[in-house]
């Protein structure tokens, strides 16, 4: 067998795009190139509807694993590029199928061809027949039968203008859109389970997600900060090039704690977080905020309280988890490997700042009245001045 392999990448919704299709394809190709090592001998081809990578067989498995973390890819296969010669294709099929047949038992297989090079003389069904019958002539005495509906092994052939690839496996990708194709957004990241999932979901919609963390030190230890570094690093693994902004928030919390109505504290903290996040997003040209809020999950996430925080900014606010229950969010968090970090026992808010019974339906006029009692604007500017900016790629 050849020591070269071809990874054949199929992409998801880009296929549906009209005139922008080229742009999406280019973005996906750039993301793939960025996540694979810059080895010599890796060749990229972009025939219509596919991205193909030619590389050494020795690294094909390892490198292809990285494709599982790139939004925009629907599936991929590792195959072999060869001449469209029926005898050679059948020989490869025999080589793959023969070891799988158990003596004395039936083994079902089929051949599926996709022929985008319309100049190729045979049609797809004809190619299926030519290759399939050659394989059958050798292996039917050993128990091989053709069965399209219940096939245990599907030999796939793609005949395109840039070559013919034969393969038999399909690995699923993350689907969605390639990161960067939709633009930049800023996610309010806590140390909890929800916000990293929300960030990941937006990355799968083509956004490059940056993060902002509101730090409670020294009321809490560095544990929360460390946790957010780890979480942003994991989520950034799906996209790359994220920034993490760490905003010192303790002075604002102290001021709200000391000056405002106790029951309103949490909503007031969140209004300030939204304002600060909006300023950062505007400054860095990120036209949207992302949060991990889920309707009704806690007191601050009622319809009224969500409205009370939304109205402090004119920016797009994306809440991809709004209608997902906790179990569903946890399932996602486990899949994207943020869950174990999120449940590390680090407090995310010092108990001294928490009210005994937080308001569930905050009234905007009362919240605004509270905000007249402390120098919010000055404290916000101060927090932004002391903000730390971290390049997550370097973590």
């Amino acid at each position, binding site marked *: 067998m050849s020591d070269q392999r071809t990874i054949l990448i199929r992409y998801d919704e880009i296929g549906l795009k009209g005139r922008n299709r080229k742009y999406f394809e280019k973005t996906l190709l750039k993301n793939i190139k960025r996540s694979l090592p810059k080895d010599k001998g890796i060749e990229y081809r972009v025939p219509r509807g596919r991205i193909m990578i030619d590389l050494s067989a020795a690294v094909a498995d390892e490198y292809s694993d990285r494709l599982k973390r790139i939004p925009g890819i629907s599936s991929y296969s590792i195959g072999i590029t060869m001449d469209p010669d029926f005898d050679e294709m059948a020989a490869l099929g025999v080589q793959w199928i023969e070891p799988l047949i158990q003596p004395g038992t039936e083994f079902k297989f089929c051949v599926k061809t996709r022929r985008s090079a319309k100049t190729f003389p045979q049609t797809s069904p004809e190619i299926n027949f030519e290759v399939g019958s050659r394989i059958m002539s050798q292996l039917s005495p050993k128990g091989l039968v053709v069965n399209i509906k219940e096939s245990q092994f599907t030999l796939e052939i793609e005949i395109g203008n840039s070559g013919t690839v034969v393969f038999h496996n399909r690995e699923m990708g993350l689907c969605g859109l390639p990161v960067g194709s939709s633009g930049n957004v800023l996610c309010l990241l806590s140390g909890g389970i929800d916000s990293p999932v929300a960030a990941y979901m937006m990355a799968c919609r083509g956004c490059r997600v940056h993060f902002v963390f509101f730090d409670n030190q*020294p009321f809490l230890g560095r544990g929360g900060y460390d946790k957010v570094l780890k979480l942003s690093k994991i989520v950034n693994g799906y996209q790359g090039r994220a920034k993490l902004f760490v905003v010192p928030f303790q002075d604002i919390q*102290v001021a709200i704690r000391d000056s405002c109505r106790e029951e309103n504290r949490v909503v007031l903290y969140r209004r300030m977080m939204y304002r600060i996040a909006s300023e950062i997003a505007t400054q860095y040209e990120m036209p949207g905020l992302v949060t991990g809020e889920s309707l009704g999950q806690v007191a601050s996430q009622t319809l009224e309280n969500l409205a009370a925080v939304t109205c402090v900014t004119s920016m797009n606010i994306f809440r991809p988890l709004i209608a997902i229950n906790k179990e569903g969010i946890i399932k996602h968090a486990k899949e994207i490997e943020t869950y174990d970090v999120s449940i590390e026992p680090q407090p995310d808010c010092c108990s*001294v700042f928490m009210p005994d019974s937080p308001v569930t339906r905050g009234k905007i006029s009362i919240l605004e009245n509270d905000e007249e009692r402390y120098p919010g604007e000055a404290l916000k500017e101060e927090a932004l001045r002391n903000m730390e900016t971290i390049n997550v790629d370097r973590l």
Partner: protein
Amino acid sequence: MIYLDNAATTPMDPEIIASLQDCMRDQFANSGAVYGIGLDAKNKIDEATETITTALGIPSSHNLIFTSGGTESNNLFIKGLCSPDKKTAYSELEHPSITETLQSFREFGNETFSLLEFNKEGRLDLSCLPLLKQRRIRLLCLSHVNNELGTINDPVPLISKLKNDAPQTRLFLDGVQAIGKIKIDKSIWPGLAGYSLSAHKIHGPKGIGLLVYDSRLTLNPQLHGGKQQFGVRAGTLPVPLIMVFAKVIELATERQQETEKHLLKLHTHLVEGLRKLDFPVLINSSSDDFQCPSIVNFSIPPVEGEVMLHHLEKQEIYVGMGSACSAHSKEPSKILLGIGLTEEQARCSLRISFSRNNNIDEIDKFLQALKSAYQVLLSTFIKGTSDR
């Protein structure tokens, strides 16, 4: 940096670091191997055992088992002797490696007898000992020095009274916080069924501890897979760790009197300093002779200990909050609640623990930092100012 959390762990002695490096390079052989270098390793363990027994005055009636630390020693002895159905007692003020081990017997329907109501400033009131006879308690488990408060259960009167009031009850002491800080009276060993020690509390490495136990007792092994250490704890012995452990015990016992004097000076200076502060400080440790000088526990209500800890951390001053093993738990310390503190007093506590490396100047800096941080934090913690 000012490090005042030595009951959690201590920095390693530079001399010990150098020795450990040498031992790791030179004594790599398996002490169970029959060739020469294996026998050399075995000899090193024998020498270390000899050094430890001499330093602590342990009689030949007692065996030494090297473990991974205090927690394992406590688990091994208590489970090895009493699981699943032997009757046990404790004061509930012990380290979780004792309390939770004993409470694990509940699944066999074996409830440990609690002597919590007989504690006086964190020590067991000896008047309760006849109860152990009535209840046919087989093993009493206590801390020699309480890990959060520093209060001492003095084994000399305890053993003597136990012999009289409940002769069938054996005594196990967790000595992890005691060694090197207070005098270990050599006469106590015949009265002790078991005693645990750990190297990292006395400037040694983490990962090595010791169980000293009466060799007439049969301990069921908790780890299987070899005949090492009387068949009680299987596993290849960490020769270099054992060698330096012997050395730290030797150093700790040699310097014990000098260390105790130094710790007492620090302790007195800190307690006096805390009393002179212009805000109320509640000293939770005891003030009599049965207080280990290495630990001072106090509360500064309404300011929470955890918040104060992080404010001190900003000044590179590191202090403790309850037991280090449960520092992430949101529940206030069970030990502090156990001696009668309110939830608020327990939540507002800090534990300062010294080693011989600390000095008066550091205590003064700590007091100054505590005072400044308290002033900053006080308004934040005063309740009832917000609903206007």
